[in-house]
């Protein structure tokens, strides 16, 4: 069969088409490569397309009899450029890593290779995953497929835009303070940040090691559960990894009867745009209609989350990014008068403005005389946030909020004001600080732009959280395929 239409395809539909022999892996991969060729000039989700590698991986799948294949073998996927893939340039969106060819695979990549997935290419991101719009990429700004004048969110903006524009059925991203959920929300797709430790961070270029997690961006909750199960697991190469106590499985819940949902009061107030609030309120009604019980809950400490995060994450980053010194990998400034001069010139030329800003904040916060006032105080605030969540989970099964207080903003709008950009992650940051799992699912549209619903669960509650998310998703039935090329048209389906 030729010319398969990949728009709106989920990964599980791809799997079914392959299993039924309705399409070959090569035809499917070719169809995605054609889609990328057709739309990526406007979306700019991909930093590099792995055309040759993808087609040869697909051909290898086709050479195997169908009965001998693994379930997801031959299904294509896009990868955020923060993940090391052996032999494939990995830049982390930074000039300092331009030309870096990892000599090893990240553990999640080894797992996907073993499962037979086809790698379509590397996806754009904010440099070193620092940002909420992909505007901090050293190479290009990805566009929101719902409105090419707006940002896709970030830092996994390339991954979210890739899925929304059907340039891949699903993608991997990483989330340190909202970097999977916020772009998923802004692009109208599903984004899951697993419990800290569920997924190995080996081969994920480190930003803030106590917060970073790899996770799926998908078209539906079923795919998020499937991709989580493909990548989760304890890994001897990441001693902070624990895996999941039980797999997420296939979400199939239809009713929310018996489940209590806490609406986080601090996230539905003044910071929340009216359009976002309206979509969120209708999602709360939907949860009620499905038999779930919603009640407001206050977590006062989450209002300190952004401040704590902007000390903890930059502090960890300033240490993690010390390795980019022009010695072992990446670019180097030449000539230099001595070693110190080489370090300074290499780093000053190689890093972009936001990365330098965060290194400066982190170095300042950790420097003599300031440590107790800033870093230690942020760590105590983190304890307070953990305690507030623990208390809330005594009363509720899950907590909910809008994922982002606003819809996708215009390109350039927040670049002049770093603090305004940081506040994009208001609702997502405390989830990382408390190491909890969180998911954003499409909840509807405000003025034609996607709005996400965030569901937060206790540690390792992914199976139940995905089940609940699936039930809500099936009732809301929000369109997830951006009407690319049909400029400024209203989306096909409004929120229920």
């Amino acid at each position, binding site marked *: 069969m030729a010319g398969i239409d990949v728009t709106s395809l989920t990964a599980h539909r791809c799997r079914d088409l392959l299993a039924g022999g309705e399409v070959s892996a090569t035809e499917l991969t070719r169809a995605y490569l054609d889609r990328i060729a057709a739309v990526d000039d406007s979306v700019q989700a991909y930093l590099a397309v792995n055309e040759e590698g993808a087609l040869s991986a697909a051909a290898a799948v086709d050479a195997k009899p169908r009965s001998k294949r693994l379930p997801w073998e031959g299904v294509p996927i896009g990868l955020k450029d923060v993940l090391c893939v052996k032999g494939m340039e990995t830049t982390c969106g930074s000039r300092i890593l331009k030309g870096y060819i990892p000599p090893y695979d990240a553990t999640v990549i080894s797992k996907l290779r073993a499962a037979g997935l086809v790698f379509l290419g590397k996806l754009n991101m904010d440099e070193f995953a620092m940002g909420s719009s992909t505007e901090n990429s050293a190479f290009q700004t990805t566009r929101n497929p719902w409105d090419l004048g707006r940002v896709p969110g970030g830092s996994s903006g390339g991954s979210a835009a890739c899925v929304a524009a059907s340039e891949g059925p699903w993608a991997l991203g990483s989330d340190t303070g909202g970097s999977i959920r916020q772009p998923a929300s802004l692009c109208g797709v599903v984004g899951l940040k697993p419990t800290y430790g569920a997924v190995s961070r080996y081969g994920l270029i480190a930003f803030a090691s106590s917060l970073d997690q790899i996770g799926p961006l998908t078209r539906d909750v079923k795919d998020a559960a499937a991709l989580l199960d493909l990548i989760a697991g304890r890994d001897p190469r990441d001693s902070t990894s624990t895996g999941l106590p039980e797999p997420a499985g296939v979400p199939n819940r239809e009713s929310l009867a018996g489940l209590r949902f806490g609406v986080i009061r601090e996230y539905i107030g003044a910071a929340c745009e009216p359009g976002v609030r309206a979509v969120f309120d209708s999602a709360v009604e939907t949860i009620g209609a499905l038999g779930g019980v919603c009640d407001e809950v206050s977590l006062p400490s989450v209002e300190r989350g952004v401040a704590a995060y*902007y000390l903890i994450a930059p502090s960890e980053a300033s240490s993690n990014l010390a390795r980019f010194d022009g010695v072992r990998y990446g670019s180097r400034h030449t000539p230099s008068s001595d070693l110190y001069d080489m370090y300074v010139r290499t780093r000053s030329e190689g890093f972009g403005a936001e990365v330098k800003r965060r*290194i*400066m904040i982190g170095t300042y916060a950790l420097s003599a005389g300031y440590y107790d006032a800033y870093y230690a105080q942020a760590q*105590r605030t983190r*304890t307070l946030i953990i305690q507030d969540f623990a208390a809330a989970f005594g009363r509720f099964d899950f907590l909910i909020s809008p994922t982002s207080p606003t819809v996708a903003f215009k390109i350039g709008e927040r670049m002049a004001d770093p603090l305004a950009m940081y506040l994009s992650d208001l609702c997502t940051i405390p989830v990382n600080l408390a190491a909890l799992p969180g998911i954003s699912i499409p909840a509807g549209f405000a003025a034609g732009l996607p709005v996400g619903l965030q569901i937060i669960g206790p540690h390792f509650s992914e199976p139940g959280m995905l089940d609940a998310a699936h039930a809500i998703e099936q009732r809301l039935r929000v369109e997830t395929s951006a009407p690319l090329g049909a400029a400024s048209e209203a989306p096909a389906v409004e929120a229920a």
Partner: protein
Amino acid sequence: MISRQEVEHVARLARLHFDEEELARLQPELGRIIDYVRQLAELDLSGLEPTSHAVPLKNVLRADEPVPGLTQEEATANGPDVERGQFVVPRIG
């Protein structure tokens, strides 16, 4: 607020250099961010332990057995200046 001298000091610690124009922009930007995060310094959190890792894990050990790793050639393949399996750097100070 953060003074010009402090910005320059922190830049040296971080192995970064900023020219005049960058400093003129950076100093007030950092000042605004630091003023924002300073809200935490005012909280009384004296009874709370600091959290550095939010999932309880202790003493994760593995058997101390040699396993194959990267070869010297693979490990140095990305180096900007490599000679006989070693990373070459400019003279130190």
